């Protein structure tokens, strides 16, 4: 801890975050700071470049950090806020674990068998460019409950990343490890358990960290879309995405920002948790 | 041309992490290298010889001492880090030819960057030097397309294009098989006979050292310091016939014990390759 405080780099970072917050505060308070009128002298130039008058952001409409803090203090004691947290967390975890349970074996089988790879990979690659959110309507039609529909989308989001990372990881295992195992008389299962699995683990960890980020994106989007699209009322159990949407619809802009930052924190926490678990599972990477 | 490339290493000490673990890599090392000499540095892995090379090149700081080249102070206790420059060019262990430039583009990089030659002239000179080294066919290939032996030779040509005072070679042939290595040795000597640069060559291979060098400095295991300096009195020009000569075998006998002793110490200390 002392090392961190003594490190000049740390303080530079603090300075920049402070500057960012100050600029934000000023920008929000002065509604005229960047209003459309500000750009009147430049209209000709911007128009020639294809920008219409209303193209540039109006920072004045964004709530100031001080207002956000106040709003957050109010929401902190509200039970439904924390319920949104748990709802979102639960969805992220279930979708993510499902993606790992199905994705890791799928990826490994593609990596181990040339035939499986030839059959499965092209279909996988064709489906992959379709963004998970494009599956929302299909998912809502197919799955009986809204919860399972959201879970499916979440699953899709993480699934692609995990499979790609597993494939990449398995491919990059040095062929000499296989040869060493074979020359020591290992059977195919042995090789799988003791060479392929541990060798792929670092990539699985990386894939999980990235997949976790994507999962949060998808959960938030799904919550917003299905929550905002349907007529479900009440503030309970919608998750943080739904929380943001409600705040927008209810006109409480400060709460929007509160929700955004909350999700950012939640996402960061879950990624760190995963990275920590990963370090625990791959101790050999430490000694370099 | 003859008085260029005199390197004086005076009482150099290098300590890593002085306020923490305080690992001494180089311990009051002194060595004088004559202009145009091939000086071989032999020692076990991790003993600190690369640190010495890095200090001369200007990649690392020294803790105390002095390194002087041709009367000019490269680094000292007051100014512990030398500035890397084209008067002493490094040839790296795993090769550092830029993969995104062709061999010819690599070779003309130095003179063009320094503005010493116009591009046209640099290309002409580069092609001539490559031809001299027997590498005419691969001018427009990328380094990734040719063999590692060829890559080493191109890298040496790239260095020589800048008319350096000294070449600093950091175990350049370590990754090559021994058949390619012996061909490389002869190629290096050929190049040396045409351009009498000072060569500061680090290796762990005693035979390589005695075959190539005028002098061989055997270093102790970490912290490194010259343990024994051997004058190789086999006359230049040499060819691979030297390897089986009586004098060669005698020289190996003289020095083998010293090298082996240090190697054993390093092994027991569990040294990792630096």
């Amino acid at each position: 801890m002392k090392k961190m405080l003594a490190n000049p780099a740390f303080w530079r970072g603090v300075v920049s975050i402070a500057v960012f917050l100050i600029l934000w505060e000023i920008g929000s308070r002065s509604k005229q700071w960047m209003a459309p009128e500000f750009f009147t002298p430049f209209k000709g130039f911007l128009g020639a470049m294809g920008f219409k008058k209303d193209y540039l952001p109006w920072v004045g409409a964004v709530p100031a950090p001080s207002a956000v803090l106040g709003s957050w203090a109010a929401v902190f004691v509200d039970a439904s806020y924390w319920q949104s947290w748990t709802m979102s967390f639960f969805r992220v975890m279930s979708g993510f674990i499902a993606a790992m349970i199905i994705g890791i074996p799928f990826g490994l089988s593609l990596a181990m068998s040339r035939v499986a790879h030839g059959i499965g990979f092209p279909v996988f690659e064709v489906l992959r460019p379709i963004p998970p959110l494009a599956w929302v309507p299909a998912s809502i039609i197919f799955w009986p409950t809204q919860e399972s529909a959201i879970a499916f989308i979440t699953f899709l989001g993480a699934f692609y990343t995990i499979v790609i990372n597993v494939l990449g990881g398995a491919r990059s295992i040095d062929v000499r490890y296989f040869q060493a195992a074979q020359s020591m008389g290992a059977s195919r299962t042995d090789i799988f358990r003791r060479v392929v699995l541990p060798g792929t683990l670092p990539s699985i960890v990386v894939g999980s960290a990235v997949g976790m980020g994507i999962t949060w994106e998808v959960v938030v989007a799904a919550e917003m879309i299905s929550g905002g699209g349907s007529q479900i009322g009440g503030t309970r159990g919608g998750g943080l995405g739904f929380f943001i949407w409600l705040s927008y619809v209810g006109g409480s802009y400060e709460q929007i920002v509160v929700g955004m930052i909350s999700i950012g924190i939640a996402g960061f926490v879950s990624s760190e948790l995963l990275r920590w678990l990963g370090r625990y599972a791959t101790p050999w990477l430490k000694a370099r | 041309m003859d008085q260029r490339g005199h390197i004086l290493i005076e009482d150099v000490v290098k300590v890593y992490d002085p306020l923490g673990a305080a690992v001494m890599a180089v311990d009051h090392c002194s060595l004088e290298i004559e202009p145009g000499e091939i000086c071989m540095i032999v020692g076990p892995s991790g003993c600190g010889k690369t640190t010495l090379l890095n200090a001369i090149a200007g990649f690392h700081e020294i803790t105390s001492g002095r390194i002087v080249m041709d009367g000019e102070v490269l680094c000292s206790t007051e100014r512990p880090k030398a500035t890397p420059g084209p008067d002493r060019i490094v040839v790296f262990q795993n090769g550092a030819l830029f993969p995104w430039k062709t061999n010819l583009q690599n070779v003309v990089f130095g003179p063009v960057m320094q503005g010493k030659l116009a591009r046209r002239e640099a290309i002409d000179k580069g092609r001539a030097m490559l031809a001299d080294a027997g590498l005419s066919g691969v001018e427009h290939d990328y380094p990734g397309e040719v063999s590692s032996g060829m890559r080493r030779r191109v890298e040496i040509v790239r260095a020589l294009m800048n008319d350096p005072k000294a070449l600093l070679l950091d175990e350049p042939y370590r990754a090559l098989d021994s058949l390619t290595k012996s061909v490389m040795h002869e190629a290096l000597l050929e190049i040396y006979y045409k351009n009498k640069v000072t060569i500061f060559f680090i290796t762990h291979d005693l035979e390589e050292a005695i075959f190539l060098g005028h002098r061989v400095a055997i270093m102790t295991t970490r912290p490194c310091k010259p343990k024994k300096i051997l004058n190789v009195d086999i006359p230049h020009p040499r060819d691979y016939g030297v390897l089986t000569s009586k004098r060669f075998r005698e020289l190996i006998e003289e020095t083998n014990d010293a090298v082996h002793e240090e190697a054993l110490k390093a092994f027991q200390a569990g040294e990792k390759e630096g």
Partner: protein
Amino acid sequence: MEALPGAPQAGETSRLGLTMFRVALWLKSPRPYLMLIGFALFLGFWYLAVEVWKLPRFREMPGLTSVVREWLSPSPTYGLSIYSAEYYQHIAMSVWRVAQAFFLATALGVPVGLLLGWSRRFKEYVFPVFETLRPIPILAWVPLAIVMFIATESAVVYLAFLSSFFATALNTMLGVQSIDESYVRAANCLGASRWQVFRHVVVPGALPFIFTGLQISIGVSWFSLVAAEMVSGQYGLGYIIWTSYVMVRYPTIVIGMVTLGLVGYTTSAMVRIAGDYLMEWRVRELALAER
């Protein structure tokens, strides 16, 4: 490096020659046929589950034949097929938005990433803010973007831009950091100035990573765009998918999805091809090392 029979010799190949050689190799392997089997299994299952066996839950889904019929019909029931102008309008709208977002993100993201990797000072000042904003899911920005931008068009492009920007900048930074120190040292030895090292070593050296980042960036851009279009848009493929659902035009949903996949893949491939073109040295290196 053993040469395969019929392989082009080093130094003699043209780019076209290399590509033709690889295609020929591919056709001779079992791979294309396995691929066909995979697709047949997938499409077959879809057809059977929905239209023949009428499995529970699957019953409600649009079937393969209805989708194909609609997509290829000159006068489609729901107005969208390869013959209708509207179809291409929507595609063009989405592609135009992604293009704006992608190019803006690249123009900003690559320089920022290069600086983050190359200059320690810059990184110390900028990275903390960068890393604080990055974990916020792009879609959490939707309401704020709608509030900030007076026109929804710019809000949608902004969202796609944001995700692209973070991916590009981060990957570029990693690219610079991953450059082997020896290259920089060699350039210093050879007398290059700091700027020359940056231009001749750092930028080309980071290029492979940058292009990986760009491929991720365009994928992420599509991801955000679709979400933004579904929530607040008036044209575009995301809009079609959502509206078709709301208006119970199920086959069109699938048409939208498939089109998205095709277009997304094509744009990704274009980025990859641009990368291959700029990094000829890498393509050759990889091709000749193919086992």
